[in-house]
């Protein structure tokens, strides 16, 4: 592979004082000493305990629900069913979405998956609440279930939602269906592209339903006061999202709801939506305003909260004799779960996102099935897609006898190339990441034994920007309180405080960051989409600039001059052409002399989230007798833009890879034919353990995002994308079989090997 020139001219790296260092994260002490307050730690006087009755059927009509015995049980204070939820009368697609959300909170006329909530109770103890659930009598009329996307697309499939019609960007079908929508990317001439190919590889893939696997189950405590004000404490990535969900389900104004996000024990996209929060509020209302606390057990988490989509994917790629891609085609069929909304929007751009393809078509189908409504697991929809495309790319390399990184160098996107959806790429660091992978000792290290193989996979992820807000107050001791709307799921209090400290030229220790509730700060999107350090970081930068402008006015008052005669550099205000100087801390101490305290707020919608690229290398050893795959070594190269806190970036990379390993080798929902989930516990739903995950070496490549004041790109999601493909490619190199189904369990690996030998 030849040396690769830079895609674009890089400016000299700015000399930062705080950015790029590795301070101890500011939430660390509370977490390691057990003082951090999680949702389960919220204790309110007169609390009632809520519990949920869930469907034992995957698909059934609800003929009747008799709650009288439960209501009569001593200690039971409230029982709710869908009849207690307000009717949603809004017409159109948005009205349908709200009805789906309401029906996912409590099933109305049908249950659509095993674990679907049917009723909820609040009682003076958790034991009485459980007993009350057992006394609720529900009469079901079971219906055939559609569990698999291809089964659900058949003409004779049971229909989940009577009013659903296929939407093809505004063109609506006229027949009942389980296909909620069809989307397409297309450019060039596909037939001509394949006609030019010297080699075409075409394969089909299936991936299992997997769960984000956060350690802390969903929980919520709520008080619905007699004046209509609702306060909710919960574990969420998106406090404002929960506020809006509760407002939609209960049909009350958002101004009446305050959501207080507690510390979060993992989310990974699974805590963006409300499950228990509307129920806790409704039970509180019905019990006369007593606080109601609810928490799921892990069986409920697996059965009833959003896993990511199972999928069927077809990929066809053609290349010429030199390995140049001439055409690429894919069809992605994603299981939405019980209601529309699978992450096709993530999978479709990702499947060929790392490649320049002139002749391309990508079709996507969102299909409802009798499984829990899908959620947004880290880089939603992308790992499925890239498992398929990167497996095909690796097979092409193998057939051409071509170095896998040279293939990517030849075909990889560069600045100015168009994404699959047509949007041109800004400055990216893909080729720098490829170069770093090629130069890493791992790439050429001996494998050291039989049945071992090395796999490579690459990924593109678009990242998200969006709306964020923050507020800051300057105190007389020179410290700054920072109230941020973003929930801290990954150490972002520290990465945001670092950006403010850099801007203000003060020590990081002088910044006191805190995650605010929804009444204390303006609207902020959830901590998803790898957006917080990028978008809220941009807010914090602008907040710093605003504080500097306001403080310059105060210095001008002290020096009896005009603000334009005050300049600021490296934490010091000075009088232009004079000798007067005040450090930030000195000026803060004299704010009283200038008339009033000082605070500022900033909100913005951040465009320009820089796309992320990753290149992963993995070595595996396959046990020829059992098919068990052991991961020996893992290196993950990633363009992080400017890494604000490299240690936190490395943590994101390692965490994403660990989750990707689980997705690749172990995890998957297992249903019986009737649609009952058979492995709704952490013994049978196999999350990776420390015995499965080796030391993961992160390699950060820094190609600053030109659209962010400090060059930040999102980093949190992309690390989960390449592992399934990289591991599949390593298995292929180790034992000569290509796995096309996830998870690549020992049984599947062994069966594939035996089939090949036979």
């Amino acid at each position, binding site marked *: 592979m030849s040396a690769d020139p830079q895609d674009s001219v890089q400016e000299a790296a700015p000399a930062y004082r705080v950015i790029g260092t590795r301070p101890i994260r500011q939430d660390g002490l509370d977490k390691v000493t057990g003082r951090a307050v999680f949702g389960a730690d919220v204790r309110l006087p007169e609390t009632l305990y809520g519990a949920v009755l869930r469907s034992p059927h995957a698909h059934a009509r609800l003929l009747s629900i008799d709650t009288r015995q439960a209501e009569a049980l001593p200690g039971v204070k409230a029982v709710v069913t869908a009849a207690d939820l307000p009717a949603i009368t809004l017409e*159109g*697609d*948005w009205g349908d979405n709200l009805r789906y959300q309401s029906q996912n909170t409590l099933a109305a006329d049908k249950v659509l998956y095993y674990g679907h909530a049917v009723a909820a109770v609040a009682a003076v103890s958790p034991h009485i609440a459980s007993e009350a659930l057992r006394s609720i009598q529900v009469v079901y009329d079971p219906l055939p279930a559609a569990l698999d996307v291809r089964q659900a697309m058949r003409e004779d499939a049971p229909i989940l939602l009577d009013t659903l019609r296929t939407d*093809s*960007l*505004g*063109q609506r079908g006229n027949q009942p269906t389980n296909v909620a929508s*069809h*989307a*397409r*990317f*297309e*450019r060039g001439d596909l037939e001509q592209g394949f006609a030019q190919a010297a080699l075409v590889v075409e394969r089909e893939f299936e991936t299992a339903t997997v769960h*984000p696997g956060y350690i802390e189950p969903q929980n919520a405590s709520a008080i619905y006061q007699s004046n209509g004000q609702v306060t909710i404490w919960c574990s969420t990535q998106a406090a404002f999202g929960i506020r809006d969900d509760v407002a939609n389900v209960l049909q009350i104004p958002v101004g009446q709801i305050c959501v207080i996000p507690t510390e979060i024990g993992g989310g*990974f*996209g*699974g805590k*963006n939506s409300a499950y228990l929060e509307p129920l806790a509020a409704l039970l509180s209302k019905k019990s006369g305003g007593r606080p109601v606390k609810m928490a799921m057990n892990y069986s409920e988490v697996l059965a009833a909260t959003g896993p990511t989509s199972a999928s069927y994917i077809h990929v066809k790629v053609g290349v010429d004799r030199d390995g140049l891609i001439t055409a690429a085609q894919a069809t992605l069929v994603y299981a939405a779960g019980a209601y529309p909304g699978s992450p*096709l*929007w*993530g999978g*479709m751009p990702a499947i060929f996102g790392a490649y320049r393809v002139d002749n391309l*078509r990508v079709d996507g189908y969102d299909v409802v099935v009798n499984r829990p409504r899908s*959620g*947004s*697991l*880290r*880089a*939603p929809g992308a790992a499925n897609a890239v498992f398929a495309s990167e497996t095909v790319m690796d097979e092409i390399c193998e057939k051409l006898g071509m170095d896998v990184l040279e293939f990517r160098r030849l075909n990889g996107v560069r600045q100015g190339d168009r994404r699959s*959806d*047509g*949007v*041109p790429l*800004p400055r990216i660091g893909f080729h720098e990441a490829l170069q770093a992978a090629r130069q890493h000792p791992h790439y050429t290290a001996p494998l050291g034994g039989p049945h071992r193989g090395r796999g490579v996979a690459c990924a593109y992820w*678009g*990242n*998200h*920007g*969006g*709306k964020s807000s923050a507020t800051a107050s300057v105190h007389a001791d020179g410290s700054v309180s920072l109230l941020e709307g973003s929930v801290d799921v990954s150490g972002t209090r520290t990465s945001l405080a670092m950006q403010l400290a850099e801007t203000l030229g003060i020590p990081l220790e002088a910044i006191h960051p805190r995650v605010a509730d929804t009444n204390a700060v303006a609207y902020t*999107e*959830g901590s*998803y*989409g*790898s*957006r917080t350090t990028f978008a809220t970081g941009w807010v914090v930068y602008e907040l710093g600039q605003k504080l500097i402008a306001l403080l310059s006015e105060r210095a001008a008052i002290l020096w009896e001059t005009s603000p334009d005669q005050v300049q600021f550099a490296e934490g010091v205000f000075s009088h232009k052409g004079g000798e007067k100087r005040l450090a930030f801390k000195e000026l803060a101490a004299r704010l009283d002399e200038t008339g009033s305290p000082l605070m500022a707020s900033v909100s913005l*919608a951040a*465009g*320009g989230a820089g796309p992320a690229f990753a290149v992963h290398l993995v070595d595996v050893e396959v046990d020829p007798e059992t098919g068990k795959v052991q991961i020996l070594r893992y290196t993950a190269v990633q363009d992080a833009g400017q890494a604000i806190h490299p240690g936190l970036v490395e943590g994101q990379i390692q965490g994403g890879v660990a989750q990707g390993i689980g997705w690749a080798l172990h995890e998957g929902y297992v249903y019986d034919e009737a649609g009952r989930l058979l492995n709704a516990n952490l013994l049978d739903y196999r999350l990776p353990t420390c015995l499965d995950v080796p030391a993961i070496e992160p390699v950060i490549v820094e190609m600053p995002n030109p*659209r962010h004041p400090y060059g930040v790109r*999102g980093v949190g*999601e992309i690390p989960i994308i390449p592992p399934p493909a990289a591991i599949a490619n390593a298995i292929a190199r180790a034992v000569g079989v290509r796995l096309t189904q996830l998870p690549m369990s020992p049984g599947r690996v062994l069966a594939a090997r035996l089939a090949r030998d036979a």
Partner: protein
Amino acid sequence: MPVIWIPALLRDLTGGAEQVRTPGGTLRQALDALEARHPGLHARLITGDQLRPDVAVVVDGLVSPLRVRQPLNEDSEVHFISASSGG
């Protein structure tokens, strides 16, 4: 004039054209002008007087929070993509 990139599923309305140049100082004005030349596009992209909630608009490489109210320059490039968020 700004250039509008037509999503694949709407190209039957533009005779297969992938890009269409159309006048308009804002996206709404451009879509109105486009509708006059290619009837039916408006109904596929607009709900009420707003862009469909599942569609985002990218103008000159940036997702626009102003959506149909986004000002366009003479050389603006407009794409309609799936609205996205993340995990």
